[in-house]
């Protein structure tokens, strides 16, 4: 296999069709009144919002904008509104700043200098708001996580990744960008740098230490059981960088699973209790 950017190319019409069918069938089978999703103004949530609206109609989709003081971005709010207008979904704004301040005051060991722990509170607070809307309005929560970030464990456990369905989770970031353009997301937004918005000026590529174009090729190779040597040779990147990516991928598997339980009884939740997710 020749590991070039062409391996990440997809039949985008087919992908669009598959994702729309997946969303529509799930919402119908769940008997849900539609979808609620976090609309940050970033590429993943914009694409999820757009394709959800194409699948079930914009009237059934609520894009929840969840800004907070520290990372507030007028541009992000405007970008989110552009997508909402274009694809006909409803939007709501919930400023989570007061809730966050409540957490900061309530937690005795709260350390404002610890950016990561503090940022995770933001992601989990957003999750709580999304699930409130879903419960109250009989909707499902639609996640926006892509495959690159999910494989890297670049998300908050039980936070931004928490959802009932994740329609983009089998697409690498560069594939999400291509799909976004294909379904009509403006190019400027499709190419916008990703940020989890946990603290000011946080950018995914800077934090991960790698460009998505390179990361996606490495992950694509690892997904297909290629060795780090083979990948390094094929894409002309030094082996330690590939090993770092591989290590991060393997060491974060716990974030992608249910909590581990000791094996004591006949069938164990999360291990060998294998049941269909739903009765339908």
């Amino acid at each position: 296999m020749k590991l070039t950017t062409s391996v990440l190319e997809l039949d985008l019409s087919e992908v669009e069709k598959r994702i729309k069918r997946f969303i529509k069938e799930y919402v119908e089978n769940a008997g849900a009144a539609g979808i609620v999703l976090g609309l940050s103004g970033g590429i993943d949530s914009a694409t999820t919002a757009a394709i959800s609206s194409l699948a079930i109609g914009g009237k059934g989709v609520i894009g929840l904008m969840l800004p907070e003081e520290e990372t507030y971005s007028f541009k992000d709010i405007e970008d989110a509104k552009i997508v909402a207008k274009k694809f006909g979904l409803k939007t709501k704004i919930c400023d989570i700043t007061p809730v966050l301040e409540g957490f900061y005051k309530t937690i005795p060991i709260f350390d404002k200098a610890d950016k990561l722990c503090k940022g995770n509170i933001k992601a989990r607070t957003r999750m709580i708001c999304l699930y409130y809307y879903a419960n109250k309005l009989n909707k499902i929560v639609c996640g926006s996580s892509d495959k690159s970030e999910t494989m890297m464990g670049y998300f908050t456990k039980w936070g931004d990744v928490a959802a009932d369905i994740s329609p983009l989770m089998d697409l690498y970031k560069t594939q999400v960008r291509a799909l976004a353009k294909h379904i009509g997301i403006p190019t400027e937004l499709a190419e916008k740098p990703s940020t989890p918005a946990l603290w000011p000026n946080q950018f995914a590529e800077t934090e991960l230490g790698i460009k998505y174009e390179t990361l996606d090729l490495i992950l694509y190779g690892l997904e297909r059981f290629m060795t780090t040597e083979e990948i390094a040779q094929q894409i002309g990147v030094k082996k330690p960088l590939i090993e770092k990516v591989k290590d991060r991928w393997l060491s974060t598997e716990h974030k992608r699973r249910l909590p581990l339980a000791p094996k004591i009884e006949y069938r164990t939740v999360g291990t060998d209790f294998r049941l269909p997710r739903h009765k339908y």
Partner: protein
Amino acid sequence: MKKKIKLALAQISSKREDKKENLRKIEEFIIKAKEQGVDLVIFPELSLTGYVLHDQVYELAEVVPGPSTKRIEELAKRTGMHIIFGMPELSEKTEATIFNTAVFIGPTGFIGKFRKMYLPTHSVFEEKRYFRPGYQIVAFNTAIGNIGLIICYDLFFPEVCRLTRLKGAELIVCISASPAIRKDYFEILTAARALENTVFLVYVNLSGVEEGLQFWGGSRLVSPTGDLMAKAKYDEEDLVICEVDYSDMRPAEAFIPTLRDLRPELFDELKRQSETL
């Protein structure tokens, strides 16, 4: 024996774990097929229960013949049609040994069954965790021709179709539950298996979505020269009526004489080599 028969490719989506609803849908499609003078109506793999069952398969499996096949027998008698469908089959001799089975029923009752020989256990598939493989190739001599049965992944192993053909099958029925990511493979293999054996091959796939697996439909009838004679819609439920004319087999066999040119000694070598892979 009829020289020409009419088939119905009943490409349904099943409701998982709901045999009652699936039997209702099977009956609905049978009645529609009957209105068009069909001799044989074919439903997909595990169409009685749905495909993604996991541990629930232990609750859903039944002996064959058994309660569900009796319901189909009644329908076959009432309509005078032959019916093939898929279900999890519980062994009569054990409590939790299950097969992935194709059941064949005619107007006079139960004809026979085929237990899937190759159980995919890779990627999204986990069939070996639940099913015991079958060991018998089948071809049933019936009033509508000599009909062999195989299931889905069996199509990837040319020896299954070859043996079915050598047992006398003129029409090989492959029932399937294939997700969209495998579509291209099946489109190639259905044509190849028909052509290399100069046999009619009918493929009937599930449609619908089960746990993120999107079954692609695309059921089809392929002629003994590998030509696509009928094709159902992709992704959606469909009922396609088509015709098999067994008199097409002679010119096909004479033009592509793969059966005449078979080399039995190679099969001994195949056995030896596969034992030492």
